[in-house]
């Protein structure tokens, strides 16, 4: 089989598969009325990061084995894995909300920055891959506890960074919110 044959067949099949995927009816639609700032001010799950990790410390469950309650320890670990999975789902939701906001902004903007859009796309791909990998690790019962504990110190600084970012968004909005051009509608106070 020649390289040419493989290239064209592979590419044509790729085009057909992507066409099939992209032409499915979409569950989400662009919502021009979306209130960007309300969405931005929604509660952030990363703030619960520390508590989640505290609950997942191996020491919290290890003592049960020492006192001969291995079965209870396993049950507890299973429950905590479920908690971690729920936490990951919430993080995923938060990420999706931020992406949704950025899409709305891009659609409403008369000019978009290609590099930032590309960066966002790369981030969304990386996040989806990491999240799926972690979820499977937890589902398969691979050691989830040790890894979580190392992050406790990181959690507070992460929350601080998020706070700074949100404050900057609010400041930028207050500074830049001006009446829009004639004929153009303004949205959500933006």
């Amino acid at each position, binding site marked *: 089989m020649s390289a*040419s*044959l493989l*290239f*064209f*067949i592979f590419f*044509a*099949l790729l*085009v057909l598969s*992507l*066409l099939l995927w*992209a032409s499915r009816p979409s569950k*989400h639609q*662009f919502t*021009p009325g979306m209130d*960007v700032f309300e969405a931005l001010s929604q509660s952030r799950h990363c703030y619960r*990061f520390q508590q989640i990790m505290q609950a997942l410390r191996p020491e919290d469950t290890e003592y049960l084995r020492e006192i001969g309650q291995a079965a209870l320890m396993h049950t507890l670990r299973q429950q905590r894995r479920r908690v971690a999975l729920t936490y990951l789902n919430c993080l995923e939701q938060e*990420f999706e909300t*931020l*992406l*949704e*906001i*950025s899409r709305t902004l*891009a*659609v*409403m*903007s*008369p*000019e*978009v*920055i*290609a590099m930032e859009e590309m*960066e966002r*796309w790369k*981030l969304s791909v*990386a*996040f989806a891959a*990491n999240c799926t990998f*972690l979820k499977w690790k937890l589902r398969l019962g691979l*050691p989830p506890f040790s*890894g*979580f504990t*190392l*992050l406790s110190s*990181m959690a507070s600084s*992460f929350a601080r*960074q*998020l706070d700074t*970012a*949100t404050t900057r*968004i609010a400041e*930028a*909005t207050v500074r*830049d919110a001006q009446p*829009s*051009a004639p*004929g*153009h509608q*303004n*949205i959500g106070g*933006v």
Partner: protein
Amino acid sequence: MFVQLARRKFLDKYPWFSIYVASTIVQSAVVASAYRIYDVPNMAVWKIAWGSQLIVVSLRFQAVVELTRRILGGYLGIWALAWRLLFTVGIVVMANSLLFSKGDWYWISLNVERGLELSIGATIVALLVFARHYRLPIQRLHSALMIGLCLYSAFFVLDYTLLEKHVQQLAIFWGFLSILTYLATLLIWLNAVSRYPQPAAQAPPPVIPKELYGKLSSELNLRLHLLNRQLTQLLRSEDQQR
């Protein structure tokens, strides 16, 4: 198809698409006449056939551009980004197609056409993926016309690639496959043009100042980065523990 386009008053709404449909009818008539006049296929018939085919494929490309503009034209920022991206996709795919066809210069016209068709298919798919990413609504009529154009392009590439080595011996069978593909595409378009209502004029989307977009966009990226880093650190710390 052309009658239906005229009946539904789509001719002036989609001029390039209508011209493309008309051109396929004219091309069939021209090539059939050439075969009748020259009796035995010769260089003149070959030139007429491929010359007219080049015009038809160019018009297909124009029809795709017209539909793309209809779908994305209302979103200024997105359109500015999309046309550059789609143009790049088209050029890259076309260049790769020609590169992979190297050595078959005797069949240059067919290879160029295959490259153009693949390029058209890739551009349409990139547009649909792009619109899906930004959650942009696509009217059902536009979607069906694009799907028809893309299916024809993809099947043309498949048909030609599979029969490439035996295209002379299997010329009749290849012609039959091409007609079958075109008829299937025509049925999709006919169904769309007959059933779907004329797309209503969409109100322009609300606009925000571009400076505000720039600031919010980078801040949002920062937040996305932080969330992503949280996950990455989680994964790395797990590896370090082992």
